[in-house]
């Protein structure tokens, strides 16, 4: 038997945990599934956290622990599990994990984030854990008083290099751009330039990592003149962007060509009741605060989805009498007239369940029954549409009943 939840969040980073905080506070039975032993996602592998509004003095991992405490306070459950597949069967979503665990949920928030990008350079895989690292806070003290190379020049590359200078003897940053040009924000660039322990190699890329059992040399190539040089070092840190963790979602929700989940501004994927938030989503700004915002939006959307869907299931699909459903909108006078006309017909006394769907608020049901014009009137029996009248005349309605 698999356990059933209102909301299952895939991934325990800032986006996922924000969804969990909002979900469980709204009394949704909420589960967070995290593949790693430790929750916190990407920030838990970083050190500094200087731009989370309202929390001027904190570290990234401390902030992430607080996110978790906050979610647990409202009753969120946390379990460890790497998701293997997501199946959407109408109102039921089935999640299977690699070790065989199975969970069911009414709504799902995908917050699986992104993994550090691997460059596939010669030696990169061979020396993983033997000098090659993607996580400064994890491995910094191993390199105490040693020389290291950092590949990358974006915000994380520069921030993490500054953090690493507290441990290592010297850092050489390999930068692909012209001298003085980096992708990182100006404020970070200045900090790095002022730091005595950081040196730069411009116009260059890392070509190979060499060593006997552990990293000993980095081979660097100048892209302007093709010249190669070797740098003696004990470690190579890669901070060259990230790739979304969405392999298990292919064919389930729409993805971009780079593998990010496509969503609306309301975090909806193309599957009703399935949302995507944070770094896994196709968007431009990827910060802890924007991830948290995504998470909150998705949880609120999930809650109204569940309410609408349950109402529909209880009153229409599983109802013991046929239902007449009128699709209307306040902006359409004709549809308002139809509603008053139907209300005057005392349909409940004639053995019908009568429902009104506001197409502006409830697109989910309107889309499911291909309601393109209003007013539209549907007669539904045991979940099946028996007749559909678009802009019906009085006579047609009488005939229907």
């Amino acid at each position, binding site marked *: 038997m698999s356990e059933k939840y209102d909301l299952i969040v895939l991934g325990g980073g800032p986006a996922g945990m924000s969804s969990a905080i909002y979900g469980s506070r709204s009394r949704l039975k909420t589960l967070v599934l995290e593949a*790693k*032993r*430790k929750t916190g996602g990407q920030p838990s592998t970083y050190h500094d956290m200087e731009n989370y509004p309202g929390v001027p003095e904190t570290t990234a991992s401390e902030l992430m622990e607080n996110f978790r405490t906050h979610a647990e306070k409202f009753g969120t459950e946390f379990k460890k599990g790497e998701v293997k597949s997501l199946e959407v069967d109408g109102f039921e979503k089935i999640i299977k994990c690699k070790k065989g665990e199975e969970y069911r949920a009414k709504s799902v928030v995908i917050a699986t984030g992104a993994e550090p990008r691997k460059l596939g350079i010669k030696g990169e895989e061979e020396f*993983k*854990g*033997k*000098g090659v*690292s993607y*996580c400064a806070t*994890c*491995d910094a*003290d*191993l*390199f*105490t008083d040693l020389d290291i190379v950092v590949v990358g020049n974006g915000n994380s590359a520069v921030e993490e290099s500054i953090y690493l200078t507290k441990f290592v003897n010297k850092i050489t940053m390999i930068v692909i751009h012209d001298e003085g040009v980096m992708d990182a924000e100006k404020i970070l660039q200045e900090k790095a330039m002022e730091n005595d322990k950081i040196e730069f190699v411009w116009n260059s890329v890392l070509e190979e990592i060499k060593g006997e*059992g*552990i*990293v000993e040399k980095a081979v660097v190539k100048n892209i302007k003149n093709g010249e190669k040089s070797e740098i003696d070092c*004990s*470690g190579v840190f890669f901070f060259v962007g990230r790739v979304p963790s969405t392999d298990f979602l292919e064919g389930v929700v729409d993805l971009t060509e780079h593998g990010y989940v496509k969503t609306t501004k309301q975090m909806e994927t193309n599957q009703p009741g399935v949302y995507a938030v944070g770094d896994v989503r196709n968007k431009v700004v990827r910060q802890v605060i924007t991830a948290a915002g995504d998470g909150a939006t998705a949880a609120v959307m999930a809650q109204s989805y569940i309410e609408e869907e349950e109402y529909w299931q209880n009153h229409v699909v599983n109802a013991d009498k046929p239902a007449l459903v009128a699709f209307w909108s306040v902006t359409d006078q004709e549809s308002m007239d139809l509603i008053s006309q139907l209300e005057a017909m005392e349909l409940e006394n004639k053995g019908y369940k009568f429902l009104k769907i506001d197409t502006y608020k409830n697109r989910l049901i309107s889309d499911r029954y291909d309601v393109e014009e209003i007013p539209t009137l549907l007669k539904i029996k045991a979940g099946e549409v028996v007749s559909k009248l678009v802009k019906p005349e009085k006579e047609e309605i009488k005939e229907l009943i």
Partner: protein
Amino acid sequence: MIELNKDNFEEEVLNFDGKVVVDFWSESCDHCMEIMPEVKKLAEEFADDFKFAKLDIKGNRRLAIGQKVLGLPSIVFYENGEKVEHLSGEDLEPEDIRKELEARA
């Protein structure tokens, strides 16, 4: 599990006739601390086939680098003083260690 340091490493591991498993760890390595209780259980379970030891890399960095350990946690297998296997990485699970122990017992 035997506590190793630069004074006893050679005697307990490199000059030992038999199979030794060394857990390289550090207090700042969260994953090391998480799997440590599981490793202790494995040490009891496989006590007949292996000698289990652990090395805190704090204060023993040169020794760790000498054993080509530059990533934590690292579980290194020795047979008659020769390094025969090196498991490491943040996704290392106690089950991976168990499999290796079963294969080498």
